[in-house]
């Protein structure tokens, strides 16, 4: 089975099949991430579409010394930020109170930490946490994807964990968390 980097090299040489395989591998992962970054599902879907289009257009600028996922998430982050700044007009009209991330979380006995993280953390801190723990990227890759220093990334992750832990301690009961999911 070819690695992401091998597929990217093949796509660079003009193989559309290789790029299709990369889209197949990353579409759900990117959407899960973007749902946590965007205000609604429409914005997340626009961002994922732009991410793959930009990746395909600028594939020649991909540096194989870095993971393909790092490069792709870097593009996705830029598109997510753009969507946050300029949300589509139709998306605003259709927007309801449902958090797009909450709508994708399966019912469970306890509160999903990512929903809490989205509410408690700044966008960049959330992204760093996601890339580190959901994507298991090394710290250097997280820093590169976010275009931040390694020191900032470490400090951000530490503060995010503390904040989440504190928020968890403050939560009165699990039942209330479940009620929230029921509403979602």
């Amino acid at each position, binding site marked *: 089975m070819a690695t992401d980097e091998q597929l990217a090299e093949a796509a660079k040489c003009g193989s559309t099949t290789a790029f299709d395989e990369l889209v197949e591998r990353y579409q759900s992962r990117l959407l*899960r991430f973007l749902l946590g970054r965007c205000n609604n599902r429409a914005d997340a879907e626009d961002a994922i579409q732009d991410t793959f289009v930009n990746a395909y257009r*600028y594939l*020649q600028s991909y540096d194989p010394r870095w993971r393909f996922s790092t490069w792709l998430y870097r593009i996705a982050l830029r598109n997510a930020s753009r969507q946050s700044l300029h949300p589509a007009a139709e998306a605003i009209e259709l927007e309801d109170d449902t958090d797009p991330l909450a709508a*994708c979380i399966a019912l469970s006995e306890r509160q*999903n930490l*990512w929903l809490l993280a989205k509410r408690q953390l700044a966008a960049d801190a959330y992204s760093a946490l996601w890339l580190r*723990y*959901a994507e298991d990227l090394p710290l250097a890759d997280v820093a590169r994807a976010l275009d931040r220093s390694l020191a900032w990334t470490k400090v951000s992750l530490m503060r995010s964990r503390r904040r989440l*832990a504190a928020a968890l301690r403050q939560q009165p009961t699990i039942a209330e968390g479940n009620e929230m999911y029921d509403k979602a």
Partner: protein
Amino acid sequence: MTRHEDSDLEQRLRADAQQIVADVSPELRARIDASIRSVAPIRSVPASRDADRSGGPGWWASGLTGLAAALLIILLVNTNRSSGPTPDSVTEDNVATTVTPEVSESLVTLPLKVRTADLTGPLEEELLRLQADIEKARQTVERDLHLTL
């Protein structure tokens, strides 16, 4: 926050990420595919910033142009200074003098004898206008004093 708590939190974050189910719908996938097919990859990647920083003929050209411009400005400034008023060009006639001894005691002595080393033409004219204004004011005060007495 203990190390144990930290580790638990990390594990929970990993597990909870798996709980998020976000499948790409066939419509979205079709949109993505159509968008990709509608664009062509850019073959020539622009040079990186590092390459730009390394310099070249452009850097030397801009440096030499800047140097020439600086020399020209220095030359022009020095030429204007040598043709302009010299520090000794303001005579005692241009400086306000006190006229009436009894009134002069009540007025504040103004440091009007100015060295003109740093003055330019317009500033000298402004100084003369100010001196004329002060002279008028002095005469007005003198007249008022005479009227009062």
